[in-house]
Structure formats: structure tokens, C-alpha cells
């Protein structure tokens, strides 16, 4: 879908929220829902940052690390991809304290979801890094760069461009999986909705608002990633003029 269409959709969903906010039946719930949405957004952004760092590190470790690092990277990826985010969340929140490590629910949410998405991201990153043409390494070698310089200056900048679209999908997965954090006592958007639904039974207005708010947030992610992709691929695309 073109970025214009996406922006139109985002504006439309914000308009829908604004219009509904003028209706007393809806405006009643909006402040609480927005409060929940703020928490959802925070966990998504922090989780995404953690996921990027972990994903790129794990991919580099798996590709180029010495044996122990490769090993660690593999264990991380397999554990966090092979078990569900819910179990990871519960484990960090309920089991870890038994070993004397108690983390706040908010921290656990960011950690568990970030590490989970990071493990998937590591595979995207690895694919993107290995997809950079061999000639790029060879040209860098002929210019006498060190391996670190090649990675930093030549390979990773090109790999990042290839990573952006799959990462965009993962961030949306992350946004959706934040709904799980209500199970470890956090009042995110989904939690607020359920809570108010139980007390007021106003299912239609509440869940209509929730739907549009989630949609708006995921559109922000998609548009942001498209923008990044466009910026990062400057020069990589054929046939533009300066």
C-alpha cells in the first residue's frame, strides 16, 4: 500500500476517534482508554528498542562471534522463539522472584516482549546481513578495511535497509502482544477496555474505540517504517536524480 493511503487511513482513524469523543456514550470511556493506550505505546516503543539491540547483537554473534558467543546467541534465539511470549512474561514475573530477583511488572513487560521479538528479529537481521552481495566484502577487503570497519561502514548500513520491512511486521506483532501484559497486573489498553466493559457492559462503544486506537497505533508504526525505508534506501534505488 502506498504511504499516502496509509496516511489517509491514519487521519481517518484519528478523525473517527475525535468524532466519537463528541458523543457522550463514547466520550465517557475515552480518558481511561487513552491512559491505557499510553502504557501500551510505552511498552511497545521500549520493547522495540530492546528488540532491535538484541536482534542485531544476536545476529552478529551468531554470524561472526567466537564459539561461545555463537552458542549464547543460538540459545537466546531458540529459547525466545521456541516458547510463547505469555510463558516468558509469566516466568519472568512469577518464577524469577522465587530465585530472589523481583522486577517491576513494567520492566518485566518490556524485557519479555522485547527479548521475544528480538529473537525473531535476529533471524531477519541475519538474513539481511548475509544477503549483502559478496562483492561488497571483497571491495572492502581490497580497500584494506578491517572486518569491523567493513561491517560497520559497508555491510550493516545496507543490511538495515533490507531489515526494515520485516522489522515493521515484528513491531506490529509487538504492539498486539502488549495485550498480554494485563495478565501481569498492568493496565494497558486491552486491560482498561475489559475492566470498563465488565463494570458498564457498554461493549459496543468501548471495543469500537479500542479497535480504532490500536489501528491508529499500528498505522503509525507502518508509516514510520516506510519513512525510514525511504530515507535509508537513498541511493540504493535505481533511477533517481539528485
Amino acid at each position, binding site marked *: 500500500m502506498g504511504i499516502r493511503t496509509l496516511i489517509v487511513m491514519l487521519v481517518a482513524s484519528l478523525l473517527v476517534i475525535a468524532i466519537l469523543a463528541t458523543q457522550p456514550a463514547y466520550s465517557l470511556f475515552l480518558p481511561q482508554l487513552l491512559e491505557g493506550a499510553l502504557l501500551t505505546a510505552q511498552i511497545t516503543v521500549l520493547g522495540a528498542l530492546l528488540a532491535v539491540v538484541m536482534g542485531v547483537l544476536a545476529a552478529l554473534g551468531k554470524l561472526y562471534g567466537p564459539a561461545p558467543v555463537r552458542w549464547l546467541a543460538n540459545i537466546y534465539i531458540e529459547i525466545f522463539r521456541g516458547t510463547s511470549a505469555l510463558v516468558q512474561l509469566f516466568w519472568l514475573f512469577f518464577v524469577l522472584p522465587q530465585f530472589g530477583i523481583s522486577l517491576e511488572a513494567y520492566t518485566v513487560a518490556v524485557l519479555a516482549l522485547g527479548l521475544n521479538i528480538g529473537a525473531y528479529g535476529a533471524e531477519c537481521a541475519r538474513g539481511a546481513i548475509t544477503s549483502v552481495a559478496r562483492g561488497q566484502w571483497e*571491495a572492502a577487503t*581490497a580497500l584494506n*578495511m578491517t572486518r569491523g570497519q567493513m561491517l560497520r*561502514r559497508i555491510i550493516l548500513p545496507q543490511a538495515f535497509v533490507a531489515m526494515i520491512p520485516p522489522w515493521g511486521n515484528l513491531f506490529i506483532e509487538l504492539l498486539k502482544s502488549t495485550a498480554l501484559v494485563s495478565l501481569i497486573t498492568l493496565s494497558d489498553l486491552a486491560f482498561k477496555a475489559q475492566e470498563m466493559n465488565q463494570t458498564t457492559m457498554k461493549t459496543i462503544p468501548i471495543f469500537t474505540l479500542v479497535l480504532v486506537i490500536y489501528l491508529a497505533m499500528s498505522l503509525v508504526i507502518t508509516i514510520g517504517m516506510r519513512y525510514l525505508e525511504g530515507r535509508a534506501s537513498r*541511493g540504493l534505488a535505481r533511477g533517481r536524480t539528485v
Partner: protein
Amino acid sequence: MTDKPIVRFDKVSKRYGPLTVLDSLELDIFRGEKVAIIGPSGSGKTTVLRMLMTLETIDDGVIWVDGEPLTHMERNGKLVRADQAHIRKIRARIGMVFQSFNLFPHMTAMANCIEAPMTVLGMKRQDAEARAADLLDMVGLAQKKEHYPSQLSGGQQQRVAIARALAMRPKIMLFDEVTSALDPELVGEVLQVIRKLGSEHDLTMLMVTHQMGFAKEFADRICFFYQGKICEQGHPKEFFGSPKNDRTKQFLHAVLEAG
């Protein structure tokens, strides 16, 4: 030209599994010499350049550059396999231009040319840019400094690649069929740049080429490879004028026939 070779292949062999690509190759190249390597497909021409650029390891023998071993280093009077630090030290004297250009697509022509001088040689941006501007001017691309590779023609890209390699001030330049990927009308502009470089007496040039006319006019020596060995070599006049080896005759006949 002096007596001491700037590059010496000393009984160098290269194998891929059971396939021997180069068989105990002996080849000396002298300072400032322009050597053209020709031969049929699969005869090991590219492999020779790639080994010298350290893009391939070697299985036997030693490659020497400027009197120092490239593939090996001296330890307690014995030659052992070179480590990365040693390879980088010697490799600094060599530059290479590839058939497929291999420019960095995320960088402008200028950025391609200042990248290694800055990161590898530690040059200041200003100095690196001045050097790159001179080189881009020399290859006729002063107007295209801020263009990305995707905005340049093949011939222009290859000229940027030549400037990029020269920016590291190598003593030895390797060219592997640098015009093969180009449309015919773009070949001339790249050869013109190489001709210009040829007038630099200090620069040693080693080029694999199918351009017989260019080899004849440009090179000081032609090396004809056949099945991983140098089958015949000599000054272009004699080599093309009165080839001695039957394989050479066959090959020349075939390529001249093809035009």
C-alpha cells in the same frame, strides 16, 4: 625497471577440492610493468588476481610483494602463514578493480572515494575529499561527485571504482576484466582512464582482459594462461606477431576470428 620483482609468485598452487586451478605458478612482475593476462575461460586468470588481493588463500608456494612475503610472514627464520595484521600491512600496497564494479551503493561517488582513506588511513575528511576530487576529476567525473552509483552509467561506475582504488595510493593495481560488464559504447571511456594511468611510470598494473587490441597497444608483456599455467609470455609484438606455442596460436585464432 629494476631487477627485483615487485610481485613474485613462487611455485603458487591453488586447488578447489580435486580441481587444480593453478599449478605451481611462477611469475615475476617488475615495478612499473603493465602486464596483460589473457587466456581461455577457466584458465585461472581471475584466481591469480584474487590471490594477490588476498581474496583467495593459496595452497602451496609463497607470494612476495616488494621483497616481503604476502601470504606468509617470517617467524624465527621460518615462513609461517601470515596473520591478519601482516596481511593488512602488505595488502595496503595493492588495489583492485572488479568486473562488476562493486561500488558501495549507499554512498555517493565522493563518499565511495573517501571512505577507506578516512577509516583505514585515518585521513582527515578535508584531505581525503581533496584527494578524491582530484581523482574523480582525473577519471572525468568531477560533475558527478554527489551522484549515487545507481544514478551513474556502468562506465561511470567503473571509473569511480578506479578512482576509489587509487585513493588508497596503491603501488600495484589489479584489473579483472573491468570492461566486460559494460555496453560496447562505454568500454572506450574506461580504457581511456586506464591508458592515462599507464603513463604513471611507478604504478605496476596487472590486468585480465579479453580486449586483445588494448592489450597489444597497452601492455609491456602478455601472459597467456592455459589450464592453470603460463603457457607463453612475451612482449606484445612478439606474442601477437609470432606466437610460438600451438595453444596460443589456437587461442589467438579463435578470439581474433570472433572479433
